[in-house]
């Protein structure tokens, strides 16, 4: 059955890479953006399965975006693959995010419901404040970032965007497989169990705290990688990546997508980005209202997220 999963996702990857080739640039970058944000939402899905909602994933999204170049700038490192490779930069971002999450996790793993949400929000806003203060990182204006290689391969002019598109697609493919496996593992199964009844989980001899901590770190790594991808597709990063409204948007997309399936976040995120760009285009003066109404409609008529459109109550959703 695991093999069938690989098969399906593999097919999707091929369709994606092929489809991307004849997409116009603006659409490619839209898709990269959606995939990057989808990674963050995938992490939220993991947390939501444990009944936790973070209003501070912007923290790791932003860390992931800044990590590579910031390290370069702060320590005045010479340009290297680390600060110019389309694959390495996001992965490094993921690592940094993971490390920070591992530390904060010892604290946050004790929190639930709204307090978990608000404490994570507080941390992301503190990062926001720190970045605004750091003129070496361009304060609120942030700075531009670029990439010249992908997995070490030097990119010919004009191929950059598609290379990034491919990198994003492959990262997402791997992430979906890994998470799909994790959710079906013994540890992964305990997520919904914790959401339903922590007391029983403890009485089964498992540590709720440790599992929450683990999921929190995984979510952060995903968010970090996603942030790295978005940063590269935008070519510019600034502290807004850590602002609470950014995190709020991720939560919305997560609800929109539903927690049924590891592909849901990416479908949801693609749809969301598309709705947004259409809203900007056709209702430049009232796009917020359009988003708000869309959001309400989803919440009212698709309680289990977009997935309920596909006709079934997903497992553990």
């Amino acid at each position, binding site marked *: 059955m695991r093999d069938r999963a690989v098969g399906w996702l593999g097919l999707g990857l091929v369709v994606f890479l092929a489809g*991307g080739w004849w997409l116009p*640039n*603006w659409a490619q970058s839209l898709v990269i953006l959606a995939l990057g944000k989808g990674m963050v939402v995938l992490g939220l899905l993991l947390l939501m399965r444990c009944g936790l909602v973070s209003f501070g994933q912007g923290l790791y999204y932003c860390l992931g975006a800044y990590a590579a170049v910031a390290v370069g700038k702060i320590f005045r490192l010479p340009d290297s693959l680390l600060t110019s490779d389309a694959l390495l930069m996001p992965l490094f971002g993921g690592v940094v995010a993971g490390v920070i999450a591992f530390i904060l996790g010892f604290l946050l793993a004790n929190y639930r419901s709204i307090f978990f949400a608000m404490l994570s929000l507080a941390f992301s806003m503190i990062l926001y404040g720190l970045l605004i203060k750091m003129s070496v990182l361009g304060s609120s204006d942030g700075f531009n970032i670029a990439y010249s290689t992908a997995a070490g391969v030097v990119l010919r002019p004009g191929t950059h965007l598609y290379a990034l598109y491919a990198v994003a697609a492959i990262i997402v493919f791997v992430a979906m497989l890994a998470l799909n496996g994790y959710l079906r593992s013994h540890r992964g199964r305990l997520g919904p169990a914790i959401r339903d009844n922590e007391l029983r989980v403890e009485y089964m001899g498992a540590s709720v705290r440790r599992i929450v901590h683990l999921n929190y770190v995984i979510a952060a790594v995903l968010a970090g990688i996603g942030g790295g991808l978005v940063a590269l597709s935008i*070519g510019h990063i600034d502290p*807004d990546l850590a602002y609470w409204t950014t995190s709020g948007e991720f939560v919305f997309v997560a609800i929109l997508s539903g927690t049924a399936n590891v592909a849901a976040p*990416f479908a949801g995120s693609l749809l969301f980005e*598309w709705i*947004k760009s259409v809203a900007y285009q056709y209702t430049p003066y009232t796009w917020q209202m359009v988003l708000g109404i869309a959001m309400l409609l989803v919440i009212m008529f698709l309680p289990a997220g977009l997935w309920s459109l596909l006709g079934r109550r997903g497992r553990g959703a």
Partner: protein
Amino acid sequence: MNSNRARAASILSITASVLAIALAAATAPAVAQDKPIKIGVVTFLSGAAAGPFGVPARNGAEVVAETLNAGKSPSPYAAVGFGGTPIEIAFVDEAGGTTKQVNEYRNLVQRDNADMVIGYISSGDCLAIAPLAEELKRLTVFFDCGTPRIFEDASYKYLFRTGATATMDNTAAALYVTEMKPALKKVAGINQNYAWGQDSWNDFEAAMKVLKPGVDIVTSQMPKLLAGQYGAEISTLLTSGADVVHSSFWGGDAEALILQGAPRGLFKKSTVVMTAGEPTLVRLGTQVPEGTVIGARGPFDMFAPDTELNKWFRKAYEDRYSVAPSYPAYKMAQAILGVKAAYEKAQAANAGKRPSQEQIIAAFENLSFEAPGGKVDMALGKGHQAVQGSAYGVTKNVGGKVIVVNIKRFAASRITPPDGVKSDEWIKSGFKTAK
């Protein structure tokens, strides 16, 4: 089992969205030769910056485009539209952050095929758009954003900025207050805690230290953007006993600072310099205390020269919107007229035929052109960055109306660094007039 169906469905749905986007792309309109010149204009249409900057700029663009297309503008801009071809403007909201702006820019250029893009008030957006303009090879003109980093850190082919950098706002402000109060000893600042506020204060502080060695910087307040309430800040400024208070506040924050500072005598106790204060005069009128030093980020509005061009623009704007144009409107007009000048120069060089983008760019570099605010020289950044004089004055209430008196003008060379020199280094090295 059914989770496989789910996966299949998910792949389909993702593929579907990709196709949908591709479809939207395919159906994007193609541009023909004889079509009007399509200009994407990006300013804040929503959010806090819309009222003070975005909307005046938008209106400025609209009124200029209309009068140009009607051929009702004075020389040297009498020709209809650009060199006889009417211009068509597509407005885009600058609100929503750089991530959104970068994609909006791609959409403008690649999906909607704008011939050129004029806009951007936020320095962050400008920094983000700059490399993209090069990548997409589309003529792009920044009209307002202030950070000097753009042309000081890199050089561009497709990118121009017709507005001077924020450096001159603060060097000019420093010059003005030192001439106004030769005896000043204590200086304080209150600026918004983000790049604009931080840079403005750093430039002003550095300039003051050059002009008045040993000046005492008593406090630098940095409330966060849109904080709205400055009770504690005002108390510290009052207790600091500063002779001069520098502020680059804009929009609602500037108005709030005046509304809360005036009743508590801040503006009596110290001379307050508001480098971007001009739009608040339009909003608050006589609420702005007398004796406040006001700037307009260039020779605009009350600082504008008494030329045909200025009269024409003011009248057209006031007739259309029944308010006076504030500086963002002027700067937008300046940008559009600059491109028009370049376009028509290129057209002339091209035997009257529609010039190519490359020809327009060639004509634009190092161009000098007239605007409602006076003469503009594309002198910096290898001919891509404008320099312009500036002016400051003090508010005075006359017959229930606020006017600006004691206006002093500063030549561009006095307040902006020569080409190739970074602003902060130039100031610290004593900003000697480049000769």
